[in-house]
């Protein structure tokens, strides 16, 4: 199964860990968490903007690539957009595979590809009022 989603709501991890088929021997997850400080300055929140349609298409495409390349059973990813506060999840990737080696490689590949390929942009909002696009 391949599921790629861009959403404004907080990301819940649990539902993604609950259902998998009996061939799965390894579940690897990555959660990107917004840190309280960025470049040693205190962050109030991050703001993510996306071209949602293209981002969803590209996410689905790269998950499908990863599923084939690494022989995965499931490749799932959710990217949050809008305001994301420190301590909250901005990105969740879940990789279900028969064995762990391909799972670790695939999870790392998917996170890298998301950061390189999805039309999503991040703006730091610092506690001191400054804003910076990445």
């Amino acid at each position, binding site marked *: 199964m391949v599921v790629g989603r861009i959403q404004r709501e907080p990301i819940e991890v649990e539902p993604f860990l609950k259902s998998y088929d009996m061939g799965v021997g390894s579940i690897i997850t990555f959660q990107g968490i917004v840190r309280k400080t960025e470049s040693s300055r205190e962050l109030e929140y991050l703001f993510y903007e*996306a071209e949602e349609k*293209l981002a969803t298409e590209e996410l689905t495409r790269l998950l499908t690539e990863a599923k084939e390349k690494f022989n995965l059973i499931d490749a799932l990813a959710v990217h949050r957009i809008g305001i994301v506060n420190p301590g909250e999840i901005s990105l969740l990737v879940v990789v279900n595979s028969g064995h762990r080696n391909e799972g670790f490689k695939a999870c790392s590949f998917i996170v890298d590809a998301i*950061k390189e390929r999805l*039309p999503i*942009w*991040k703006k730091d909002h610092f506690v001191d009022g400054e804003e910076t*696009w*990445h």
Partner: protein
Amino acid sequence: MKVHIKYYAKYADYAGTRMEDIETDIITLRDLLNIVRERHPKLKEDRRSLIAINDKFVGEEAQISDGATVSIFPPVSGG
């Protein structure tokens, strides 16, 4: 012909708008981007921008037709 330009993220800040229409006779994306970058010089700060025409990613050699929507994206920074 008329072309709709859409700006994303910091480019919307630089252009002061998320969308504008341009009346033009040019038909290659490269020439159109030159016009846009002269209008909003801060867009030149990135060596490469991602471009989509009518929601499909394209290279700068792409052709533009009347009524097209051209989306200009900064380098991505998600995750």
